[in-house]
């Protein structure tokens, strides 16, 4: 490929491709072992499955029948993460429940299988379960308490990376791998392009890790390698309030809509599983939304009438190879693929896996490659606490209003009315962003609660846009483009749940942004013309 000879070339021991939880976990693990590393990400942090999941820290009970090994691994990691990253986790516990009509054999075998897999569960008295969680169905036939928990995946990713950076790791976001220069059977150079600025650069690394999640196949293809991954799209719904105290899980084989996970002040319900042929259009559909609602009502009846704020979809990258009809029965474990046998000695792909076991995935990968670097330091992530990086705490529902009240500064105007995000909080989010090319509404939304409340950006969209113009020197055309992208990004999640109150919000949003502000008629791109 053509490359710009004047481009910067960064040198490092390990280059990690992918800014999801896997990549962030790997660079932290490496940095703790004293390895110099660089993380690159094509979009923003947690842009793939890491930012589009239930936020569920599995107890393991979900996998006892399909993958007992994964089940046990989940349990172990659940215990470790609760110790080392408590600020990212709400240890709310879970209830696995079955209702009349659910498969009797599965229910009967549940406790025994959990025990065999080493996943602790406790049988619950049905009346007591109902008293503790009034939202669950009346026709319960079985209930077990589990150690499932709610985890904030955004904060987890950001804190892992922040810790790694504090130990010397460098990160380049919005930077896409353009190609690999392969010499004598190894990756000699990785060519990259900053998609925001168009700037080209390159990285020379001893070892290269492909941790691109659903996109590992695309990355490997740039090195002329083939990885067989299948894509399973999972869609989730966000209800506007917290419906239950605990995670509520259906006691049956993995199926559509078998989990309700509280996430601070909201609830996440789902998922679905739909096989995708490619990654071009990862958005929720109306049919998936209806499937989730209808499938979850037997578990928690009010899910038939609650207010849904948005839906979103992520892609589970599953390791192909087994002949499975249902993607849920595919392995939820992970593979470490050394490409040595295919003729590229210093490239390793980490494929598959899931949020709950990200740490052990990173550990095993680092154990594999560190000897190649001559590094013998052991993994420290099992015991070393994950530092709570102050600027990364604003994804937690309720953190912003609390800070606003505690600070009580006279000029600390509220910018997002739904989630009560104030000026001072926005400034901290911007500080964490650290780089003008990253300063836009979508990136701010990812790192805070801005745009996440019931109005989905109606008030805060225009307000924060003006704030960036006034206080951070953003150009007007850039601000308008950012606002359009933000509104369209929000809309992706809103359109499938836009009925009842949310249709009212959609109508108001359109009246303001199309009817009044005429955003649809603004020239696009730079050079706003009047």
């Amino acid at each position, binding site marked *: 490929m053509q490359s710009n000879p004047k481009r910067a070339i960064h040198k490092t021991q390990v280059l990690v491709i992918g800014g999801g939880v896997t990549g962030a976990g790997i660079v932290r693990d490496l940095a703790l072992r004293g390895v110099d590393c660089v993380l690159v990400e094509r979009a923003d942090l947690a842009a793939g499955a890491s930012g589009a999941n239930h936020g569920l820290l599995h107890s393991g009970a979900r996998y006892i029948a399909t993958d007992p090994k994964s089940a046990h691994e989940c349990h172990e990691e659940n215990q470790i993460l609760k110790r080392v990253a408590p600020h990212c986790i709400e240890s709310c516990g879970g209830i696995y429940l079955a209702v009349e009509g659910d498969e009797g054999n599965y229910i009967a075998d549940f406790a025994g299988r959990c025990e065999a897999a080493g996943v602790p569960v406790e049988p619950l008295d049905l009346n007591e379960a109902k008293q503790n969680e009034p939202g669950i169905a009346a026709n319960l036939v079985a209930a077990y308490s589990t150690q499932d928990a709610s985890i904030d995946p955004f904060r987890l990713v950001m804190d892992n990376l922040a810790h790694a950076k504090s130990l010397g790791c460098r990160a380049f976001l919005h930077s896409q791998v353009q190609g690999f220069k392969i010499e004598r059977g190894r990756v000699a150079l990785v060519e990259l392009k900053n998609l925001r600025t168009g700037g080209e650069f390159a990285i020379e690394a001893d070892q290269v890790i492909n941790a691109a999640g659903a996109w590992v196949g695309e990355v490997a293809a740039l090195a002329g390698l083939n990885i067989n991954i299948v894509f399973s799209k999972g869609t989730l719904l966000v209800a506007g309030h917290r419906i239950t105290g605990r995670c509520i899980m259906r006691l049956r084989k993995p199926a559509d809509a078998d989990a309700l996970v509280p996430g601070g002040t909201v609830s996440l319900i789902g998922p679905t599983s739909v096989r995708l042929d490619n990654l071009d259009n990862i958005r929720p559909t109306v049919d998936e939304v209806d499937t989730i609602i209808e499938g979850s009502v037997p578990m928690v009846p009010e899910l038939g009438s609650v207010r849904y704020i948005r839906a979103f979809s992520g892609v589970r990258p599953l390791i192909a190879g087994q002949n499975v009809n249902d993607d849920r029965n595919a392995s939820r474990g992970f593979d470490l693929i050394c490409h040595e046998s295919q003729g590229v000695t210093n490239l390793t792909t980490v494929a598959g896996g899931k949020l709950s076991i990200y740490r052990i995935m990173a550990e095993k990968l680092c154990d594999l490659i560190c000897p190649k670097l001559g590094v013998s330091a052991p993994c420290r992530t099992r015991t070393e606490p994950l530092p709570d990086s102050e600027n990364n705490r604003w994804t937690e529902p309720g953190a912003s209003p609390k800070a606003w009240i505690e600070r009580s500064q006279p000029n600390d105007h509220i910018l997002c009315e739904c989630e009560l995000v104030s000026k001072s909080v926005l400034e901290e989010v911007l500080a964490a962003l650290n780089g003008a090319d990253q300063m836009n509404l979508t990136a701010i939304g990812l790192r805070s609660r801005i745009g996440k409340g019931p109005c989905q950006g109606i008030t805060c969209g225009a307000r924060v846009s*003006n704030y960036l113009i*006034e206080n951070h020197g953003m150009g007007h055309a850039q601000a308008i483009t950012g606002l359009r992208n933000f509104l*369209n990004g929000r809309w992706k999640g809103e359109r499938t749940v*836009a009925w*009842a109150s949310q249709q009212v919000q959609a109508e108001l949003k359109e009246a303001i942004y*199309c*009817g009044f502000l*005429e955003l649809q008629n603004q020239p696009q791109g730079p050079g*706003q013309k009047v």
Partner: protein
Amino acid sequence: MKPSAAIKADLLVIGRGLAGMAATVFAARHGLKVVQAGKPGQFNLCSGLFDLMNPSYSDSGRQAGKSPWKAIEDLVKKQPGHPYAKFSTGELEAAWQEMLGFFSSQGLPYFRRSGRNCRVMTPLGTLKSTYALPQSMIHGVEAREHKRPCLVVDFEGLRDFSAIAIRLALQDTWPGLRSLRLQLPGSGLGCGGQQVGSGEMLAMQLEDPEVQRGLGGQIKPHLRDAQSVGFPAVLGAYRHQEVMSALEEELGVPVFEIPTLPVSMPGLRLAACFERGLAGLGVDSLADQQVAEHDFSDMAGRIKLRLAQAGSMTELQINGVILASGRFLTGGLESLRTKVVETVFNLPVHQPSSRSQWHQGDFLGPVGHGINQAGVLTDNDLHPLDASGQPVHPGVFAVGSILAHQDQARMGCGAGVALGTAYRAVEQLAARLRPGTRQAAAQKVPA
């Protein structure tokens, strides 16, 4: 429940937004006895700008300068189901004249150009194309058109309005535009950069002559060559004209308002104007009462209705009903998960075949979402149709945004449809009730 009262009247208007208010005014001026009911309009959300037609519809702004009247002609050719196809431009012009005349008589003068739209600055610095605007906004439109030196002022804490954004958006073509941010003088919530809260509070504060003088004093040193000074549309609530005049006297140049995001003072001024004016026209209000039962069976005679509110029931015998209950925001339409329903009479609603067709993937796409064109179908006389396609009753009309086949946000046809259909419905009803008195269709449209 026994009805606590029984009322006979010529017309019941359901809905108190622009279409319902206009129908009430038109009917009352015809000498009809009118009763109003239904939910209040959302005037707090109304910018005060009255749209007729946005010539940019579906072409992303390329024809912004085209006549809105010509754009309507083109639209109804392409979309013969649009409400504009149901009446003449003569009737539409008459509706504008009558409505704007009413506002003027109530001390809220409006401005329009006959053959083209005005482009008004928004709080984000974009330009909005509109047909009629409060007189308080004219100087801003003209200053931009002629690139006259101009100062736009905003207030610390009024978070949804940015003079800086306006300046940055327009300065390339309008170098004489400057911006200024002020702390509101005087005591109270605006003081010292404290949270100003809402435009309503600011508007109230600005009615204080002391505050006006202080504000003038703060602006004067920055005036320089400015030939006019723009403000967010918060220049007074009830004493709007006085506030405008006082500031002009202080500053020695014309001042103008720029419309704001909600809460919108020009919208609230409209609501107040209707309330004042309708009181003078002897209109009865059953404000906030909802239709509980209706009987349309006597096709040649009166319509019987029962209205309910918190334990009281009112029975009405009415010659005509105008349904102006609006869309989702005002509750005239409601979307369930599977379908859109009409909430007052359970009329059939024209709509996309399934929810997956309601909205397209691109929120800001040029064409607009399928659900926007959902609504009540009528015949050419604006009688809503029942499931078999027949008018439900010769005395029942549907007007305004509840009508199918329009997309107000994209087409920019909201006020035009509201006024035109209200006018048309009232004319029909008046002709039905008082044959022979119908006015000749109004004057020709100016070119």
